[in-house]
């Protein structure tokens, strides 16, 4: 069963801490995405990557960075966590073309609380 795995389901961090959210997909997908989900705001795109070593800013990149050193792994980094980054973080992937290119596959999500 193909999947997107987010290593941490629940995290509690303190303001100012550095936070790493890891995402691994086993579908050999080229495209990977990080979203955050907040009530009433839907899913907002933070960063995305269409290839290894490639990254592009989404709609709300401020306060975040990403790393994609290998095709299967896309990491989201909060350099200095703040309380307004308390949210559900969702990683997703999709193939660059062919069947399934128009569908995102999501991980189970990482619920981050910043105190």
């Amino acid at each position, binding site marked *: 069963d193909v999947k*997107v795995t*987010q290593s941490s*389901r629940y995290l509690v961090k303190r303001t100012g801490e550095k936070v790493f959210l890891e995402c691994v997909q086993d579908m050999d997908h080229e*495209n990977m*995405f990080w*979203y955050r*989900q907040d009530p*009433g*705001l*839907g*899913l*907002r*795109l933070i960063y*995305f990557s*269409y290839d290894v070593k490639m990254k*592009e800013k989404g709609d709300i990149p401020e306060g975040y960075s990403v790393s994609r050193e290998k095709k299967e792994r896309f990491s989201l980094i909060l350099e200095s966590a703040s309380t307004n980054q308390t949210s559900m973080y*969702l990683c*997703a992937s*999709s193939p*660059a073309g062919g069947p399934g*290119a*128009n*569908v*995102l*596959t*999501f*991980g*189970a*999500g990482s*619920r981050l609380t910043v105190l």
Partner: protein
Amino acid sequence: DQQVKQNSPSLSVQEGRISILNCDYTNSMFDYFLWYKKYPAEGPTFLISISSIKDKNEDGRFTVFLNKSAKHLSLHIVPSQPGDSAVYFCAATVYDNYGQNFVFGPGTRLSVLP
């Protein structure tokens, strides 16, 4: 400026009846539309999609209708079941300078009452 809008934050329906979830969009360049379902503490799961060149797609109890002239799509669930209670996100895809981009609406919480 939201390109994909779901104007109903919530919807309650009796079990066995039809659920209709609506979605409006503003970008005429969107070429593919999707519906995702999300349970609490889980990631969204793909439900059904429709290409912009079609006006209807059906999969079991789920049917999506697309009205391009009105920039409107809807998801029909017949008959509704308690297990359908979840948040439903409408999404659309468009190709930009970098590749394919996915734009999501804010979601509608569906409650199916037994």
